[in-house]
């Protein structure tokens, strides 16, 4: 009996070497574990085994059966693995370098940059407002302290309309309404489109965008103005930008400043963007003229504030890399659609 068991085990190990696929494995299984298989066969011998050896022989038979079952399972797994591997080997490699069409269009670069500026000021608690493009002479000039004799009120510089209104020459035209709506304590940002009656060239447009901001409260200082401008420019350029003020003159503010930003490209060393000066003129600003506050019903003895008019188009050109301002109003789809919806 014992020999028989050993012989079957040897035979199995020998037979199993020839397993190539699932069907030969099944044949093998039937040959050993099937109804007429060798293990079933062995049971006929078992009956004649003396009772004292039955326990031992039973164990041996069982061991053999387990061995065969496990081996077959193992073969089965190996065959399955092999089949998967073959399937993988047969797979056609995709071309992972193919271009994709996201179908995404584009925002105008002004919209993208404006959103960046708006987000920065929103985060600092500014109300975001809006203004008309056609304004009365009162709002555009008188309410912001531009005297009757100022050259800006001549035909040459301003688009006057046949009903006596004007295409607004600066975003400050909305100041009066905004101060009356939100004043005297307020922080408001209002982007808008402005117009000047002048010849167009690579750096001059008759239609351009500004972003105006006003802050009115008690005890507002030039130091506060510098702070906000610096925070805004740091946010827009995503790096530490220095700002400097130079004397300027605008009727709506007193004192008035020209604000320069240190060139974000050369860090102030001088390059082609900043005309080798290290500085970029970006933003006329100043402390709101007491007359402007008074006209808007704000007591200039109690409150003061600052205002700025960021030259959006200049900022857009610097950030987008466009070299001619005329592109901004030209509707050149092939150019514009390269911007997608983000600019760093």
């Amino acid at each position: 009996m014992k020999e028989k068991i050993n012989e079957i085990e040897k035979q199995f190990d020998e037979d199993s070497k020839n397993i190539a696929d699932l069907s030969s494995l099944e044949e093998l299984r039937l040959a050993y574990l099937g109804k007429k298989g060798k293990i079933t066969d062995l049971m006929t011998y078992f009956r004649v085994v003396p009772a004292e050896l039955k326990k031992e022989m039973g164990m041996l038979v069982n061991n053999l059966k387990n061995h065969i079952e496990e081996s077959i399972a193992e073969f089965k797994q190996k065959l399955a693995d092999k089949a998967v591997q073959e399937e993988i080997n047969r797979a056609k490699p995709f071309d992972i370098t193919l271009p994709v069409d996201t179908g995404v269009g584009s925002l105008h670069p002004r919209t993208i940059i404006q959103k960046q500026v708006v987000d920065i000021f929103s985060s600092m608690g500014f109300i975001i407002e809006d203004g008309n493009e056609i304004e009365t002479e009162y709002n555009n000039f008188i309410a912001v302290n531009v005297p009757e004799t100022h050259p800006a009120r001549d035909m040459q510089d301003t688009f006057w309309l046949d009903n006596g209104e004007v295409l607004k020459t600066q975003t400050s035209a909305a100041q009066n309404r905004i101060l009356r709506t939100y004043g005297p304590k307020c922080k408001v940002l209002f982007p808008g489109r402005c117009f000047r009656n002048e010849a167009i060239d690579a750096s001059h447009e008759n239609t351009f965008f500004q972003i105006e901001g006003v802050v009115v409260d008690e005890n507002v200082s030039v130091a506060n103005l510098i702070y906000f401008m610096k925070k805004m420019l740091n946010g827009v350029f995503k790096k530490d930008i220095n700002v400097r003020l130079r004397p300027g003159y605008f009727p709506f503010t007193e004192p008035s400043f020209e604000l320069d930003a240190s060139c974000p490209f050369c860090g102030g060393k001088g390059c082609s963007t900043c005309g080798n000066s290290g500085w970029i003129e970006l933003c006329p600003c100043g402390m709101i003229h007491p007359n402007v506050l008074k006209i808007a019903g704000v007591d200039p003895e109690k409150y003061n504030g600052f205002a700025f008019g960021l030259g959006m188009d200049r900022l857009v050109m610097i950030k987008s890399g466009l070299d001619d301002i005329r592109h901004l109003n030209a509707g050149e789809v092939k150019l514009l659609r390269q911007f997608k919806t983000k600019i760093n």
Partner: protein
Amino acid sequence: MKISLNWIKDYVDLSGIETDEIVKRFNLSTAEIEEVEYMGAKTHGVVFGKILEVKPHPTNAHWHILKVDIGTKTLQIVCGAPNVREGMVTCVATDGGCVNGFKISVAKRGDIDSEGMCCSSAELGIGSDNDGIMDLVGDYPIGTDIKEYWPVDDIILEIDNKTLTNRPDLWGHYGMAREFAVIFDRPLKKIDVADLSRYNALKKISIENKSKNCYRYSAISAENITVKKSPDFMKIRLTYCGMRDINLLADLTNYVMMDVGLPMHAFDNNVVKGIKVVDSHEGTKMLTLEGEEHTLPENAVTICDQGGEPVAIAGVKGGLKSGISDSTTSVLFEAAVFNSTAIRKTSRKIGLVTDASIRYEKSLDPEKTTLALSRMIKLLCDIDSGAKVTSALSDSYDYHYPKLSIEISPKFISNIVGENLEEERVVKILTGLGFDVKTSKNGLVVGVPSWRATKDVSIKEDLVEEVARMFGYDNIEPKPLKFEAVPVALKRDVLLEYESKKYLAEKYGATEVHSYIWNYKDFCEKHKIEHPSYIKLMDSSNSGQDSIRSKLAPTMLKFFEENRNSLDDIRIFEIGRVVTGLDEQKLAIEKKHLAVLLASQTDSEEKLFNEAKKIVVDLAKTVVGLDVNLKRGETSSYYHPVNSARVVSRTDDFGEMGILHPTVKKSIDKRFNVCLIELDFGKLAAAPVYYKKPKMLSKYQQVNMDFNFLVDKKLSYGEFESTLSKYRNKISNGFELVDIYEDDSLGDRKSITVRFELGSFDHTLSGEEIEKFRGELIAHASKNNIILR
């Protein structure tokens, strides 16, 4: 304006300060320096020489061979100047030298060795004469480098005129010098002038002022002027400051202007003996110094002689007949101040902008006239010792600016600046700038000097600027602002504007464009596109583009036309302003519109239309939260009369959309199918949004059931839907469209497949319930000519 640092140094000692520092501080404290020019830097090795011999050149009839004594030796020089003569003293550039960047070396000129170059004043960059080499009369040290004798080396600062707009005091060197004195804390020297009171006994010149725009007219006369040429230093300074040297009297008027900042004029005293200032009649003619005739507008301030003959356009230009020439020996000097706006208007109207007019536009100080005349007489008598003053200072001073005095405290200044400014510092700065500062119990009482009181400084805040700019804006530390934390109002249409743009770009692949606010008349007329306008630009220099648009669509079509040759498919949009009418006060009714244009060479018009409808419905629903639909109705004439529609909600009309009218389509480009959308974005963004609670889901099983109906081909889905919806049954949760099918085999009918959802909240539906629903629905449909297929 160009200013000379040599000139500035007449009045303030800037020794020991680097040019870079001078430029930087001036930029930050006063005005913008656009350019720094280092005059004389490219000139060296030029000496005074004397021509000993002049011989003809063998091959070039225009040239001469000169022997020139330059002290150490005699040079042979071939010279092409026509004015050479023996005994002439001139400037000689020697071998290895440099004339304004042009290198000099020994060379052959027509086979003759030339060992240097005789120079004209223009070649050296120190004068305007280029007709011949310099012909120096006087005692010049032969062999000496001209730089040792003349102030050829100078630094010229070109100041941006725009930044001086509000500073009438900075249009001459003395005013500029005051700024430098305060910036660098150095004393300002007094300007050297003649004492005119010694001529008080002389007869006065008659001055009759009949113009309210002439604030002050001062004059003085002199005779026996024999010196014709200005001193070299004066010519050099004028040249460096961008003026031409002409003759002594003309140069003197320019020099005094550049010195004290007040334009001057010199009349020939033989022609002009007395002065009348009048406002012109329209059509008055004037022949100016340059020989150009100008017709004066009405009410231009005009200077006339004793007989009433116009001799100068006040503040702009002198007349030819009364002007000085090289032969003038007696002269009447004018120093006057006029109303700035009057001068600006005259200058603009006659199209003549001069050094004088740009200064007068800035509101000059009338106190300056006597300063200018006394400076003039001082310079004249120093240069021409024979010159004799022939009149007393004559003066008609008819408008005095009010004397201004401003109360201010250092604390007020400190609060606005955001830095602590001590009283001592404030007083020092203001005093340095010429303000008269007295202390009072509330702070300071500051008297404004006349040269700042014409418009520039009038309120406390103006003084803050004076102190702050001299303190240095770069010395102010940025400081955050403390604010009450209150919720910020969010403007819905501003938020939605960006969201809508992003939605159109990201989901629908459209490109945002920006266009102008006016109509393109030529384009619209060419393609027969209506472009109504309610308001026009007054200045029609903007040719053909003077009407303000009331719709965005025409501009979108223009962009389409411009892009159609570079792209097969175009999707663009804009949110922009239009004017849709005038209100009762004739003010513009301004609206914010949204326009989208879809153009394609491959997609059918119907496909584009359906895509556009999807955009409209999706945008309204997703971004705004509003249900909109299309409705037949009148649209602009560039739309297709049948396949265009109004965009409406249950209560409002927001605009229109549709494919192009065949005429417009063919006119622009028939290859393209085009669909347009134009909505009143402001109205859309402001529309009230109704929130619908979601339908709860039943825990019992729901059943979907499809029905395939045959209907008349002409029946719209909307009509079908509303008819079918009239059958109500509480087990129905409504239906949706699955498919619409049209085929010739169906004749004049089409097939519509819809899917009903059936269910109940309290039980699972029985077969009988469903069967009953089916039967009733079919019966209802067939009564309405909707037949189950």
